């Protein structure tokens, strides 16, 4: 479970034009469920996900991860709740690495290198045994139907393929939580349906899924266990 209490993110705080993108959000996100965030553009969905995903630190408020972070800190038992808002970047990164997998709207593949290398990128700093991670990456890419493209450069992939590469990359460190920001924005409805099928597989595998979307295919889907609606940085409804 992920628990947020009174989380605020203010950009340019203390300057002439402070802007509060996320405003006193208190929320409980259940584990192993799919939670969808919707709301108009600029309502703070992406910002909220970066806070949960340990990419940015909130200006104030607390975020607790319950039983998700593994043994990210040497002195904590894995099951304990971990308060992440005041951790140094090193620890946030360590947690992010093992706990969260990100799928971006723009896919964010690194151009000029192969599909396989892209998928391996998150494993470089961990220094794991390269043969083991490569086997894992190849298996994952094969299961996503990308076996033929292992060595091709990402520049020439189709939109759907690029996204599946991004998904394989998000899963390479076997994270407990998958965060997807507008995953279907660049996909046609058939591909969007396929994406949701994949998500349902992950949900069945026990992953916690957090997805922002404007797309009814996503937020009206039966898979969505909870829909959080946001406006001007605040949560207006949870269903």
């Amino acid at each position: 479970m992920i628990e947020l209490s009174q989380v605020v993110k203010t950009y340019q705080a203390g300057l002439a034009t402070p802007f509060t993108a996320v405003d006193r959000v208190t929320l409980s996100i259940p584990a192993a469920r799919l939670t969808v965030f919707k709301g108009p553009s600029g309502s703070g969905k992406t910002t909220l996900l970066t806070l949960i995903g340990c990419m940015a630190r909130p200006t104030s408020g607390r975020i607790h991860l319950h039983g998700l972070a593994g043994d990210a800190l040497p002195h904590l038992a894995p099951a304990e709740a971990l308060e992440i808002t005041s951790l140094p970047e090193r620890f946030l990164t360590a947690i992010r690495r093992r706990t969260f997998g990100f799928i971006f709207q723009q896919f964010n593949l690194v151009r000029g290198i192969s599909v396989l290398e892209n998928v391996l990128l998150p494993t470089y700093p961990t220094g794991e045994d390269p043969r083991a991670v490569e086997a894992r990456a190849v298996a994952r890419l094969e299961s996503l139907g990308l076996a033929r493209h292992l060595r091709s450069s990402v520049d020439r992939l189709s939109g759907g393929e690029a996204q599946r590469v991004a998904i394989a990359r998000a899963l390479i460190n076997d994270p407990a939580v998958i965060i997807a920001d507008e995953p279907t924005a660049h996909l046609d409805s058939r591909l969007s349906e396929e994406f949701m099928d994949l998500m349902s597989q992950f949900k069945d595998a026990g992953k916690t899924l957090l997805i922002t979307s404007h797309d009814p295919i996503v937020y009206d889907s039966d898979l969505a266990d909870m829909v959080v609606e946001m406006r001007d940085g605040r949560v207006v409804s949870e269903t």
Partner: protein
Amino acid sequence: MIQHPGILALLVASGIVSLLLAAAGWQGFRILRGWDLRSGSEVQLDLERRTYLVSTLVANALLIQILSLFLFIFTAEGLHNQFVGAMCAAGSLAVNAYGYPTLLMKVATCLLAGVWLVLHRADTQGYDYPLIRPKYLLLLILVPLVLTETWLQLSYLTGLKADVMTSCCGSLFGQGRQGFAAELAGLPPRLMQPVFWGTFAALLGAGFLLLRFRRGGGLFSALSLTFLLVAVTALISFFCLYIYELPTHHCPFCLLQREYGFVGYPLYATLLGGAIAGLGVGALAFFRDRESLTAVLPTLQAHLAWTTLLLAVIFTLIVGVWMALSPLRL
């Protein structure tokens, strides 16, 4: 004389080190003043980012400083035939009053910067920046020292005038003369031998205590510094005699020459590295009971202690083998 390429290189290096550390010091000062871990404000986030800058600057400065310590000695070595009476670095350094102080300051700043990096390493392993204050206070001490060293070196190098009459190592480190160096050389091997071996044994003992029972970090640290001093004294007093195969040549610098297989470099490098690691153990011992460090400090201290012990053993092995193989018998 300032246009000698080696001197130029030294000046460039010390300029860079001063610049890097002055910048690091300034950032450290800002960090000390504005630090507030509880706040998630952008100011604090920015300061946390700056800790990366400071550690990068100090790490590079230390590396350059260590390299330039050796280049300094090597350059002094190479310049000796420009001064009447100088036979090696010992004479070149004595050309004016700044030579030896520069050397000592270089060693001191290397030790301190090394300890700083050890503290930094520990700090990054705690989840609440446990050492931020001691670390940056130490940095604020380090900066003026480095600037002083730069100034001393500049005074020394610009003060070099060819043809100055100076002393050679024989007169500086000769027995029966006056001065501190001669006193060191005059220490009889019969006294220094047991002192050296005693210190070595004590260091091993303290290391055992620390590694086995996790106690006596301070003691170990003090002994590692003592070992550095005693080892240098022992080098001057008797080890070098075996290396030079001359019963009266007590020079700590000729060891660095080609004739003696550059044996001085590994000797001094092991001593310096061992002292840095050993001092690091002691510095960490002060912070044993910071909550966020209790889990990581013992491991770090153990690594450092192993490093010190290993380097001390290597040093002792080198001189020991040399003594055994040398035809000289005292």
